[in-house]
């Protein structure tokens, strides 16, 4: 009886050792996978249901936290967007100022005073701008006004802190100009639509579309050689005394933000020299 039990024990030990050796050798892995997979599936199912039930009871707190976090992040996004817009504005302003500085460096003979455009004439018939510098800053009536691109107009009225500038596109404007490269003299006029046109171009002058229009300095109202624009359309009729042309202004008058007033230019009043009709 005892020998039978010891045989049974030895067989059991051998079986266990064999199974252990097989397991350590990796021979039982498919079998264990097959045996464990129902358990893993069941555990996954129970665990997911438990988590769902737990979330059901704890979610209000999480939603409140998420809402608060969302609000914080939205506020942060708004703040950063505002910062981006502010930086973009500063960059645009810097570009304008940089261009104006380049213009001033290119014309060292003139003394400039920068001024910001703060308004326009309320009447749609007139083309005037209002800038935020006045007689307190040394601005006087008749001083020419330019931008980084070219001629803008001239000062027509001054108060202590503000100045009204007549744009060259105003219908009452008449400026003596010179064409480049032909050298022909002509008269630039504005209009109620803001379009510029050239009159009194001599018939003999050879002018082409794309010729440059510059101030001539005649009449004493503007310094010479300030760029105004480019010819776009020349009309020559043999029956007329003069040629006429349209001018594309180099300055975009609708987008003026900062201008330069030439403060060392003294306009010459030639009215007494003009014979009365």
């Amino acid at each position: 009886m005892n020998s039978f039990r010891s045989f049974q024990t030895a067989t059991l030990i051998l079986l266990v050792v064999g199974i252990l050796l097989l397991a350590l050798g990796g021979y039982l892995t498919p079998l264990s996978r097959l045996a464990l997979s129902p358990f893993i599936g069941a555990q996954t199912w129970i665990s997911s249901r438990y988590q769902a039930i737990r979330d059901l009871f704890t979610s209000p707190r999480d939603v409140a936290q998420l809402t608060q976090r969302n609000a914080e992040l939205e506020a942060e996004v708004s703040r950063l967007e505002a910062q981006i817009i502010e930086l973009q504005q500063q960059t645009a302003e810097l570009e304008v100022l940089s261009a104006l500085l380049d213009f001033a460096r290119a014309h060292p003979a003139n003394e400039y005073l920068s001024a910001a455009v703060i308004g326009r004439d309320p009447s749609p018939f007139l083309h005037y701008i209002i800038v935020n510098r006045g007689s307190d800053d040394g601005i006087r009536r008749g001083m020419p006004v330019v931008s980084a691109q070219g001629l803008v107009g001239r000062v027509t009225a001054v108060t202590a802190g503000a100045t009204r500038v007549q744009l060259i596109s105003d219908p009452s404007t008449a400026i003596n100009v010179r064409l480049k490269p032909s050298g022909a003299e002509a008269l630039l006029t504005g209009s109620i639509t803001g379009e510029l046109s050239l009159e009194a171009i001599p018939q003999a002058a050879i002018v082409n579309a794309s010729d440059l229009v510059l101030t001539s300095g005649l009449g004493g109202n503007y310094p010479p050689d300030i760029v105004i624009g480019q010819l776009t359309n020349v009309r020559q009729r043999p029956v007329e005394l003069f040629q006429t042309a349209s001018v594309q202004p180099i300055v975009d008058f609708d987008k003026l933000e900062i201008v330069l007033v030439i403060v060392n230019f003294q306009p010459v009043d030639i009215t007494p020299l003009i014979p009365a009709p």
Partner: protein
Amino acid sequence: MAVFLAIPLLGLLVIMQSAILSQVRLLNGTVDLVLLVLVAWSVQERVKTAWHWAVIGGLLISLASALPWSAVLAGYLLATGGARVLRRALWQRPLLAMVTATFLGTLITHTVTVAALQLTGTPIPLEQAINIITLPSALLNLLLAIPVYTWISDLANWLYPQEIEL
């Protein structure tokens, strides 16, 4: 009280007109907010300071505009007069009076402006002025006429409350 209120109110409108509205264009036409307020004020039933407002508005606009001050003043006074006449003629239809007065007011102020500019030697082609300035301006003014009327009616009711007989 209403006269004293006119100075800051119309002053603010002139600033808005010069800084913002003069850049909002339909062709070359712009809204004349001061004219709209003057017309809306003139067609109110109990208002007795319409002429005062017209003078203050005209003088304030003259500060910002290169137009002769007399032309601006004359234009606004004539528009106010027209609005007063229409108020009496259309007293049962104040909105109709407002719309008609706005259109007529735009025509009157622009006619006076063009006449003044012609007198001062500024060449203004009439047909072009009507097509690209006056008619678009009239349209913009008409678009804003009703909202401005509503706003000014509230102001008038606040300043001139209706008397109730006991």
